[in-house]
């Protein structure tokens, strides 16, 4: 469970059904369970107007549970990158009244939110729920490269190689946490790397 440390660190809630007719869900891995949990609170017919986009793990867990909700559409892209063109097109054609629900890892939530922000959806109107891994996307403030799936503190930038303090300061626009060189003042200091975001 993502803990509140500083104000810019996003806090995720619990998905709850919003008024309106059209609902778009984007989830990965354990995020599917956030959707099925929410289904218990949804009014009858809620999923008739719902599209679910789900990146399952290699074992295809939870797909059946989502099928059982009988959404208007269920897509199963293999990765976030592959769902991107279709998502952008959906949002281009969408109308006001569409509600967005994002569930699963922080990286998935952040990247999906990034696309939605571009399309003109305000972040406060999106429902989010974190489930599963705490692994982070991190932007190196020095070279601007983004390193995926960061689980240690500190962490090495996968682009420029600097050793970075993985801060809790988070940017919605970049969908990443900030990484700052941890031993700039004294390069001989090399703090041990520990698992911090499993």
């Amino acid at each position, binding site marked *: 469970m993502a803990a509140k440390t500083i104000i810019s660190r996003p806090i995720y809630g619990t998905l709850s059904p*919003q*008024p*309106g*007719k*059209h609902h778009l869900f984007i989830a990965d891995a354990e995020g599917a369970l956030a959707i099925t949990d929410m289904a218990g609170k949804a009014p009858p017919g809620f999923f008739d107007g719902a599209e679910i986009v789900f990146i399952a793990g290699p074992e295809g867990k939870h797909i059946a549970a989502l099928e059982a909700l009988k959404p208007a559409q269920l897509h199963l892209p293999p990765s976030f990158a592959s769902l991107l063109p279709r998502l952008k097109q959906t*949002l*281009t054609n*969408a*109308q*006001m*009244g*569409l*509600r967005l629900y994002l569930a699963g890892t922080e990286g998935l939530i952040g990247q999906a939110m990034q696309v939605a922000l571009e*399309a*003109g*959806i*305000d972040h*406060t*109107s999106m429902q989010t729920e974190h489930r599963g891994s705490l692994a982070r996307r991190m932007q190196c403030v020095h070279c601007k490269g983004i390193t995926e799936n960061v689980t240690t503190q500190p962490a090495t930038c996968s682009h420029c190689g600097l050793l970075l303090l993985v801060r809790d300061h988070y940017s919605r626009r970049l969908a990443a946490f900030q990484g700052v060189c941890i031993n700039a003042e004294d390069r001989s200091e090399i703090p041990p790397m520990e698992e911090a975001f499993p």
Partner: protein
Amino acid sequence: MSTGTTKLDVVVSDVVPVNDLVTRFHFRRRDGELLPTFSGGAHVVVEMRDGERTRLNPYSLMGSPLDTREYTISVRRDDVGRGGSLFMHRSVKPGLEMVISYPVNLFSLDLRAKKHLMLAGGIGITPFMAQTAQLAGAGGNFELHYTCRTASLGTYADVLQQRHGNRVRLYHDDREERIDLDRLLSSQPLGTHLYVCGPAGMINWVRDRAAALGWPPETVHYEHFAAPQPGLPFDVTLAVSGKTIRVGEQQSLLEAIEAAGVDPPCLCRGGVCGQCETNVISYDGKFIHNDHWLSEEDHRSGCKIMPCVSRFEGKSLVLER
């Protein structure tokens, strides 16, 4: 709640009856300079000196922000209100010198919007006059739906249609023309922002339907005029300096204390820094707390007051100054 905007000395340059209910007023600066520019949706607060009584009423600026040689406002005559609009209609003539505030905007456009959808009812058309002029000047994407009781009461409808063509749709009550609100709200592209200004009933109806149809609250904007009232004058005894002062209508308690030669510590003059916090020794009446420094408990206790922004009504007030 603004702790006094700067004031503008103006003269009424024209008074134009628009229809049975609505009259338009034009103001120019007394010194002949350009008026301050503003953002569409802004209003000015007009001071009306009606004999002994001063009223302050906010009115939306209707003109284009791109041309500030004069300000124009439109006032709908309200025969049963507090009298401000009646004063304007009856007593304000060309040549009259008046004082207005600098523009203040509590109903601004969200410039991120991919489209601005505007709903106006009756005199609620006024802020949209300025906003449509601003957006048209910048190539913005907007659509205005305007309901009025009759064609003759469709203030500025002709002007708007001439300027903006089919981006303006009119609905006349007496011809049974109604906005098909659900259809309108279900067919807007993602990224549209909704603005509504008109009678309270219309605003509530639009907000309810928008929420039910899935519009997030951040995308629905409605004009709520915060009409600042001049405070009533009140007397205060300053126990430490042994003075009695009267706080005038147009004056803050802090200003009145300073005018008496007493100088409490102060900094922001806006109710947030805490510097002017003053202890109350005794009182008989009620406090009007407008600050953001004291706690709820402090407000209720009657033991403290922030003189830069707060006031008092009642028989007596003794402060530790």
